């Protein structure tokens, strides 16, 4: 028994239940201790995960992978969870109640994502995905005093359940054809039969639809803006960064490891999905007035860029899988920085319209600077990770002979600059309605420094991260 491979996951379970348990004995005004405990616990787990780097053990006949790809994203999810918990402190105290469960559920969602990253088989993948989803159903409706939060929870649970059902049906069709649920088994079966019957195609499409909901790809994106707007802002940040990345790594594992032999059959479908997602995300974002809805549509558009990478996956070249990983991490860090700014501004002023950001550069210069860096990175401007990751993604598309797709994606990136600059304009050009500096908590400043440094250092010198990503890409190359 190689039970030791599960140590990080065991630790996460213990941590979550410790938080739930200690909540009962923690006085109401000391709940911050739970958050700090959770964050420190997660940092310890990061250390444990890193220790596995370089090994590729598999557990229970390909059921559970502990390869570099999984490890890289486990570290990423844990890091994001730490940032989310620490930037929730003020927000949770101000707007939310039942804080113990709140932090515990964040850790449970992280556990689900860690399992998703390792899943080598469809049922495992599905169960871990449900663990993530159920945590988020509760978390997105956590702001009880805000009717929009309740609406967000209901929307998310109904659409989420629907998409889970679609995906499960798709999986059953694949199982019917191959008599196996492991990715490796599906790969072998596909390679043998060579021919796609109707059940196959329908199965792949249904799974794609189900995962499309999770990563908010058009036309399965309808829930995202409402849920993003209604959910407590730290949860929105977590949804848009980690939950989306988790959906994508499952998508990449499925399509790169299981469905790769029939790549020519789904490549065009994926490319069309990418074009629709980028275009609709970007064009609708142009008209948004609420910053959370703007970031929701921008994150839909970003999902479109990642789909460009998925459409460019190839068994012979690591370019696309490298690019997807780089963009997921880069987009994640940039979006996280943007959301931390939104969280702190909302805490201090209770405002969340784009026009409310007028004159932020005078009231809180560093927050404005961090937001500027985050938005420029999202827009793909050089000096920030967004430039390198987009360049990488579109190079991968061109490399697979889809220069048209690269052109559409680059054009979309140009469109997005307009609405990102719209926020920059408010922050830097317009005058504030009520002057006077904002008292930004020191902890938030520290978090923003870390994120901005990461976003720019990776943007200038991505080689160390790319080396890790290159090692993670090995499993996708035949």
């Amino acid at each position, binding site marked *: 028994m190689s039970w030791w491979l599960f140590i990080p996951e065991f630790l996460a379970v213990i941590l979550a239940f410790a938080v739930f348990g200690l909540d009962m004995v923690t006085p109401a005004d000391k709940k911050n201790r739970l958050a700090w405990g959770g964050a420190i616990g997660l940092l310890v787990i990061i250390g444990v995960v890193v220790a596995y780097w370089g090994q590729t053990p598999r557990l229970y006949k390909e059921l559970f992978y502990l390869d570099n790809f999984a490890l890289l994203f486990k570290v990423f999810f844990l890091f994001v969870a730490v940032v989310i918990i620490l930037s929730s402190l003020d927000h949770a105290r101000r707007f939310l109640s039942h804080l113990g469960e709140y932090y515990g559920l964040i850790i449970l969602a992280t556990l689900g994502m860690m399992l998703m990253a390792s899943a080598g088989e469809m049922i495992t993948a599905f169960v871990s995905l449900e663990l993530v989803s159920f945590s988020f159903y509760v978390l997105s409706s956590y702001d009880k005093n805000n009717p929009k939060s309740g609406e967000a929870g209901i929307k998310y649970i109904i659409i989420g359940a629907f998409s889970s059902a679609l995906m499960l049906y798709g999986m059953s069709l694949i199982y019917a054809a191959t008599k196996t649920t492991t990715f490796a088994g599906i790969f072998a079966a596909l390679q043998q039969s060579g021919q796609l019957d109707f059940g196959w195609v329908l199965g792949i499409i249904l799974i794609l639809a189900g995962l499309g909901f999770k990563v908010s790809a058009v036309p399965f994106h309808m829930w995202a803006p409402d849920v993003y707007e209604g959910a407590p802002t730290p949860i929105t940040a977590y949804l848009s960064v980690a939950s989306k990345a988790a959906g994508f790594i499952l998508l990449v594992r499925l399509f790169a490891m299981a469905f790769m032999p029939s790549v020519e059959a789904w490549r065009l479908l994926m490319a069309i999905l990418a074009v629709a997602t980028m275009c609709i995300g970007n064009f609708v974002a142009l008209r948004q007035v609420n910053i959370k809805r703007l970031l929701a549509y921008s994150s839909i558009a970003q999902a479109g860029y990642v789909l460009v990478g998925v459409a460019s996956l190839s068994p012979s070249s690591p370019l696309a899988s490298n690019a997807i990983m780089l963009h997921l991490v880069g987009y994640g860090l940039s979006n996280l920085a943007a959301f931390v700014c939104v969280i702190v501004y909302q805490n201090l002023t209770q405002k969340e319209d784009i026009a409310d950001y007028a004159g932020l550069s005078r009231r809180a210069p560093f927050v404005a600077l961090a937001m500027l860096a985050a938005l420029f990175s999202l827009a793909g401007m050089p000096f920030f990770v967004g430039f390198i990751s987009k360049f990488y993604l579109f190079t991968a598309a*061109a490399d697979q002979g889809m*220069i048209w797709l690269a*052109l559409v994606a680059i054009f979309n990136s140009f469109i997005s600059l307009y609405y990102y600059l719209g926020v920059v304009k408010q922050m830097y050009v317009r005058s504030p309605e009520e002057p006077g500096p904002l008292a930004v908590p020191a902890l938030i400043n520290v978090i923003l420094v870390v994120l901005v440094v990461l976003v720019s250092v990776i943007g200038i*010198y991505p*080689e160390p991260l790319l080396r890790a990503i290159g090692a993670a890409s090995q499993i996708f190359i035949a």
Partner: protein
Amino acid sequence: MISATIVIPFLTALIVMAIPRDKTTVAKWAAAIAAFVTIVLTTYMFVNYDYQKGGFQFVEQYPWISSLGVSVKLGIDGISAPLMLLTAIVIFCGVFASWYVKDRPQEFLFFLFVLVAGVFGVFGSIDTLVFFFFYELAVIPMYPLIAIWGSTRKEYGAMKLTLYLVAGSVLIWTALLAVYVASGTNSFDLEVLQKVTYEPWVQTVFFAFFMVGFGVLGGLWPFHTWSPGGHAAAPTAVSMLHAGVLMKLGAYGIIRLGMVLLPEGAKFWLPVLIAIATINVVYGAISALAQKDFKYLIGYSSVSHCGYVLMGIGTLTVIGLNGAVLQMFSHGIMTALFFLLVGSVYDSAHTRDLNDFGGLAKVAPVIAIFFALAGLAGVGLPGLSGFVAEFMVLVGTFQTYPILGILGIIAVAITAVYVLRMLAKVFFGPLNTRWVKLPDARRAEVFAMSILGFFLVLVGVYPTHFVRVITSGVAPIVTRIVGAQ
């Protein structure tokens, strides 16, 4: 040494931000010293460039993104050497031109120096991805610079300028990827990519991408409309850098990426380019005739003068291209001087309407003298830089397309009309009583004007080294295209 010219402005940007906000003079001196260092470095490289050997010199290479085959490869050839020098001169003068900026001067210098680091990077890079990285880096600071510190319709002007330029880079980016994939070399290195002979359709399609994409920044008609409005909105130092240096990146990109990588595409499209460039020259000059706003007038004259650059490129002759590159340098200096003068007048007069002025030479003799100098360089008076450059461009044009050459000469005449009329209206005639107390140029500004004026005369009377260096850069390109029958 090239890496130093990129890193120094960038570090300066950071240092300026770190200096306490009540010590703005310290920040300005730090910026001035850094800019002076770049002048020393670029002058050294320009003077020591071995034009008999040609090719890329002062080459440096550092690994960057190995999985994409990208390394930071820097070097300059005969085309970029004078342009590096131009950039250093203009930013040095730009610091003095912004000596009197009052609103958040350190942030202003920060964005200005990031922009300059980008421009040096573009001129200095041999790897195409690095080139594009710096190209975008040079474009983006324009938005905050104009939107925050600008004047007339600044938000509109800034947004329009940024979107036009980034739209241009959509085409450039796509073409870069197409060339990369078509080459099959798994490298973005220009020296590797230029050895490949690309299929005819790649050449024709993507040369057009490069031509239009860079043309937007180069002020190519009909994509020039962002330029006069953008210049009118921008603060003085930004106009100087933008018209003086940044617009040159457009023409430079057409030569460096378009003509070098896709010679057959160049052969196909350059007749079109020279025709459009002639429209630029004539249309810019005629539009300048109709302007009442000082900055718009200079803006349209820039469109016209940048047309000569594109015209020289379109001739596909050594002398024409030589003139084009020299015109980039000459116009860069001249237009920087123009915008500096206009900015100086506007700062104290708070109007730019030409009809409001009259007889300023009596109250502001220094401004009047430098204005006359810049104006005469613009007209192409022998002894000043504009003459040499435009003469070479027109010689090249007469060798290839005589009719367009005639149009070019007519445009020179129109230029003379609007420049002399402007001088007459603003500086001569009876003094408008409103301006009796108008101050002359301030000390820092006079210093900057003298430097720019010096280079206008220097290139006019001693263009020899410039021409030799530039020839070593353009001759191989022309031979390759004309020889690529």
